């Protein structure tokens, strides 16, 4: 089991943070375009799911998986979206993503008066805390890092 990469988007679709760990393949496009494509896909999935749903939804879209990876999605009421790609063996990650938001993002960015909201996050403290948080996850193993 492993974690491939993690995206954090704000409510306007700007990628606030991106980091990767054991990613094997790049998308073959520039990072900016990849962020746009990822956000666009999530945006469409959200509207797709809300139309498709036979019942009223509470959390909405949670995750999807393909034959090779699993994408976990978590959105706060303020529209911050945390997206993590892992391999298929990882169970439901909502709590983990919520923790990333509440213990890393809120503590290091929202409570930091020097961090400007609305653009790429440059806080080193945030990146290093996030990195150690992900590396400490039970399903993060350096299988072939």
């Amino acid at each position, binding site marked *: 089991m492993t974690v*491939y*990469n993690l995206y954090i988007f704000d409510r306007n679709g700007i990628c606030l943070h991106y980091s*990767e760990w054991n*990613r*094997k*393949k790049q*998308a*073959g496009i520039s990072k900016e375009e*990849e962020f746009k*494509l*990822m956000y*666009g*896909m999530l945006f*469409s*999935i959200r509207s*797709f*799911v*809300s*139309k*498709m*749903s*036979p*019942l*009223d*939804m*509470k*959390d*909405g*879209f*949670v*995750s*999807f*998986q*393909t*034959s*090779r*990876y699993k*994408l976990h999605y978590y959105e706060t009421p303020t529209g911050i979206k945390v997206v993590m*790609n892992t*391999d298929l063996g990882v169970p439901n990650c909502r709590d983990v993503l919520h923790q990333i938001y509440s213990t890393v993002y809120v503590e290091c960015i929202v409570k930091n008066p020097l961090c400007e909201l609305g653009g790429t996050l440059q806080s080193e403290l945030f990146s290093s805390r996030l990195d150690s948080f992900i590396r400490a996850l039970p399903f993060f193993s350096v299988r072939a890092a």
Partner: protein
Amino acid sequence: MAIFSVYVVNKAGGLIYQYDNYVPRTEVEKTFSFPLDIVLKIHDEKVLVSFGQRDGIRVGHAVLSINGVDVNGKYTAEGKEIVEYLKDPANYPVSIRFGRARLTSNEKLMLASMFHSLFAIGSQLSPEVGSSGIEMLETDVFKLHCFQTLTGIKFIILADPRQTGVDALLRKIYEIYSDFALKNPFYSLEMPIRCELFDQNLKSALEVAEKAGTFGTGS
């Protein structure tokens, strides 16, 4: 345990078959007096609740009928605009039925081709080599399972998150498609499936799957 719907999408992203296997449950009928304490808005040619959630009427629910007569998109059965109709005090008290909007066949076509592109993007954004597109998409109320055949046809099932044996059911539906659509001399490839035997066998396969939850591998 339930299977909600089945979609079949051809390799170009066109919807060629759709079947709904559920009855909508969340419908609420209430009588209102003037002025209406629910804020309505028009979205996608439907009148939706945008504010004033109460008594089982939720934000996002659509106006389904007025005084027991079904509405037609954003118009009443007589052809007046619903929003205008509800502004007139003379029409009150009025009984309105709210519920989740049923998908029109146009919307279903659109959603099917939307999934077709999401499927492709899902494989492009893969962090691993050789990934397929979306095979299973999970939300808190349903799971969408997708099976793409080698020839590019996608079979999509919307089911309860606890439903088991959906992958076997997808392969069973592929088998039914090969047996009763492809082998039907009047069926032309890539076109909507209108075959009675296909319908019948699909329905019985869904019934079996809902009852048992699983399929034998050989069936």
